[in-house]
């Protein structure tokens, strides 16, 4: 297993260098897991790309670094403290970066800037030269890298492509002629069938198509835009419609309009856009229109830090919108779960006729990982409950039923004619301001949510069965938590994690799990401990809220440290 990190200035090709390295490792049959952090501006600022590669399943981007590649001094200054140990490798652009005495590992200086500027006569080739250096040093197949370059630059013409090939070879040659390998890291070829490599956003978009989504409306916003861009390329091939709306209010309005006609429809955005949808969430709840709304969370309120990660939109997802309108809130935990989770989201939306808010985040949305190729034959796709011919004789759109769900006619259906409305109404859509009716209809709308609790895949559990310490996290931290739990278990700590995938309605299983632990930690990437508050309110049990609000994900070691602290403080003492 190797954790690579590449750091440098935004716009210098740091991210694309990392992406190509990742793809090459994956194509050699390795598992990969990436993490990126970069500035919100188009040019300038510090950017970094981390890829962990292994022949074993990976759960997170890792804690400490094995190989650090510094495009400039800033990258060195920021990252050097995170090197794992004296076997760690530093590769630095000797033109622009000068390691200080404090680094104890193996360092290779390479004059990449000079090579690019003077020998290649094109500064932009620097990142490919470095790719060549990595290739030679760590045994990354140059043929695979050439293939990747071809896919990236082929469209830009022979000249550009050849320049890149030369840059790659320049890097390889440089190592051959100047560097004696002193470290032991090697990326090896693996036999690894039936695995695919994709980002969280790609997995989600693909899952949506698989779920039958045939309408998407959205408005560009980081870090959700890739979803729209992916669907804009793919959905039309499935006869699906993608509309770039004039804003997020229009986007969700269009989704509700499309869904009203019986089509599975989705929008995706990030904080600012999601905030604008608050009023329409209520309409969807009240008029009982299914909709899937993806929130790729980013850091901070308002514009905040658009390219950084955070889990601070949970409150809004749970409670935005005046009055009380039903919704389901889910959180995606991994790239694989992005695929299957979004399918469940569509199923819930259709089953309950409610909006489903799906929380992803920058960490998950933009990270790439190797996953099992999904087996479509095992995927269940639900369809809308439609009125029977008998029901259409005296059709009532909002008929009170046992489950709360009323069959939904779609335009074109004879006998099904009805007027959906956000005003309080009776079973037959008639406006009503009667106290009893309002009570009944509110109950009906919330009753439907119970149907979610009966499904499968509502949570995952990791770690020992006789836990003393429990971890209840949510969303994209699952891998990190799992890795920390494994490490803790290896150290003999009795720790287990319960990871809910549906956050609202709250799973009763969480209560059972919590009560089985001596102490429970709720790690989340926000300031106020949003999910911890929900758990306390729901189960009346106190939990330890462990938060971080730095725009970065947890690392397994951070979590492990927290587990050990809690163990020392509460559990080992108790014994």
């Amino acid at each position, binding site marked *: 297993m190797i954790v690579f990190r590449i750091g440098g200035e935004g716009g210098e090709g740091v991210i694309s260098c990392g992406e190509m390295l990742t793809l090459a490792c994956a194509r050699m049959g390795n598992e990969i897991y990436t993490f990126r952090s970069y500035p919100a501006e188009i040019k300038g600022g510090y950017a970094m790309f981390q890829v962990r590669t292994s022949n074993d399943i990976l759960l997170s981007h890792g804690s400490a670094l094995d190989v650090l590649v510094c495009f400039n001094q800033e990258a060195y200054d920021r990252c050097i403290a995170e090197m794992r140990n004296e076997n760690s490798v530093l590769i630095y652009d000797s033109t622009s970066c000068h390691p200080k005495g404090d680094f104890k590992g193996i360092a290779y200086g390479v004059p990449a800037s000079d090579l690019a500027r003077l020998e290649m006569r094109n500064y932009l080739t620097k990142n490919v030269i470095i790719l060549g250096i990595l290739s030679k040093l760590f045994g990354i197949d140059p043929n695979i890298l050439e293939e990747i370059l071809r896919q990236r630059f082929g469209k830009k013409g022979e000249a550009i492509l050849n320049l890149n090939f030369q840059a790659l070879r320049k890097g390889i040659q440089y190592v051959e002629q100047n560097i004696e390998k002193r470290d032991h890291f090697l990326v090896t070829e693996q036999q690894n069938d039936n*695995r*695919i*490599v*994709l980002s969280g956003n*790609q997995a989600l978009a*693909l899952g949506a*198509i*698989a779920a039958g989504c*045939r*309408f998407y*409306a959205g408005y560009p916003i980081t870090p959700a835009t890739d979803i729209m861009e992916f669907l804009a390329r*793919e*959905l*039309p*091939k*499935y*006869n*699906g*419609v993608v*509309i770039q*709306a*004039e*804003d997020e*209010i*229009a986007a969700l*309005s*269009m*989704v*509700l*309009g*499309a*869904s*009203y*006609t*019986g*089509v599975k*429809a989705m929008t995706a955005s990030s904080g600012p856009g999601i905030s604008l949808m608050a*009023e*329409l969430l*209520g*309409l969807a709840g009240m*008029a009982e229109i299914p909709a899937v709304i993806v929130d790729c969370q980013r850091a901070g309120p308002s514009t905040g830090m658009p390219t950084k990660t955070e889990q601070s939109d949970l409150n809004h997802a749970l409670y935005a919108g005046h009055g009380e309108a039903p919704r389901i809130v889910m959180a995606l935990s991994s790239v694989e779960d992005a695929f299957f989770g979004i399918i469940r989201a569509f199923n819930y939306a259709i089953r309950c006729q409610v909006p489903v808010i799906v929380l992803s985040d920058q960490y998950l949305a933009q990270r790439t990982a190797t996953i099992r*190729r*999904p087996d*479509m034959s095992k995927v269940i796709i639900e369809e809308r409950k439609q009125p029977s011919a008998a029901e259409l004789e005296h059709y009532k759109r909002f008929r009170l039923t046992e489950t709360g769900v009323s069959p939904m006619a779609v*335009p*074109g*259906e*004879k*006998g*099904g*004619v*009805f*007027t*959906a*409305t*956000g*005003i309080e109404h009776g079973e037959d859509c*008639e*406006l009503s301001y009667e106290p009893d009716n309002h009570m009944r209809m509110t109950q009906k709308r919330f009753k439907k949510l119970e149907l979610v609790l009966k499904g499968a895949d509502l949570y995952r559990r990791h770690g020992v069965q006789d836990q003393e310490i429990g971890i209840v996290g949510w969303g994209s931290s699952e891998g990190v938590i799992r890795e920390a739990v494994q490490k803790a278990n290896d150290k003999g700590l009795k720790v287990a994690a319960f990871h809910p995938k549906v956050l609202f309605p709250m799973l009763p299983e969480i209560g059972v799990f919590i009560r089985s632990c001596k102490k429970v930690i709720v790690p989340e990437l926000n300031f106020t401990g949003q999910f911890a508050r929900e758990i306390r309110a729901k189960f009346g049990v106190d939990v330890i809220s462990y938060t971080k609000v730095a725009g970065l994900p947890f690392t397994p070691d951070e979590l492990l440290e927290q587990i050990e602290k809690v163990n020392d403080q509460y559990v080992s003492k108790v014994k």
Partner: protein
Amino acid sequence: MTAPAEASPQQSPKPGLNIAPYKTDVHPVWCPGCGDFGVLTCIYRMLATKQISPEQTVIVSGIGCSSRLPAYVNAYGFHTVHGRVLPVATGVKSANPKLEVLAVGGDGDAYSIGAGHIPHAARRNIDVCYIVMDNEVYGLTKGQGSATAPVELVKGTTPFGQLDEPLNPIAMAIAYNISFVARGYSGKPKELTELIIQGVEHNGFALVEVLSPCTTFHDTYKPISQRIRFIEPSHDPTDRLAAMKLAFEKDTIPLGLIYKSERSSFHERIQMTLDRAAKKGAGNVEKTLDSFK
């Protein structure tokens, strides 16, 4: 020089026109004499004339007195929230182009809170007929002046007179290049019905701006009937500059078709995209999955 009485909805429809199948048993909540009754009747007549089947029709509205209209028509309806009628209608029509989609609402819904959506519906040229019942006030919230209210109107929120210049919805529509722009008057139901029929038949976005007085808070039947005139047949509605001239007119209120242009509608262009995509091969989840190997 029409007397306001003409606005009343009691006027009997064209002989032979059976509007009954399009009525519902929901009693309109509008005040007596409200212009919206007239508009409703014209919509019934349009449906009856064109024999559109109720289940193939969707009427989308926002919020306001006028936006209550969908419940009064035997057709699918979606009474949404304030100002979002056009994006919802865009979603409906794009998802199922076979439906006949009407959008209806008030001037507040259209030109205040919803103002940002009109240029985009125009630019897409969604094949929807949008009927705006303009009474120059927010009727449902008790008659505050709207963005089309005349200067010096004294109402609840403007006790010292509203001093801003009213918007010119027709000029705006032409500037947006809405491909069918007409003005009608609820007190002239025959002509209005005709405009709505044309608007529905038009391939693309049709705006029918209707003067539809609010008898309770801003009764304008008299001044309107004194100022309206029907546009002379010599007017060429495809002449955008001539249309703009009509829009800028101040002394009289020209009624009729003002501007019209022909271009592909949104769902037709969506189909173009689908056709282009189809050349890359039909969608197949297994294949797409494999492309990530």
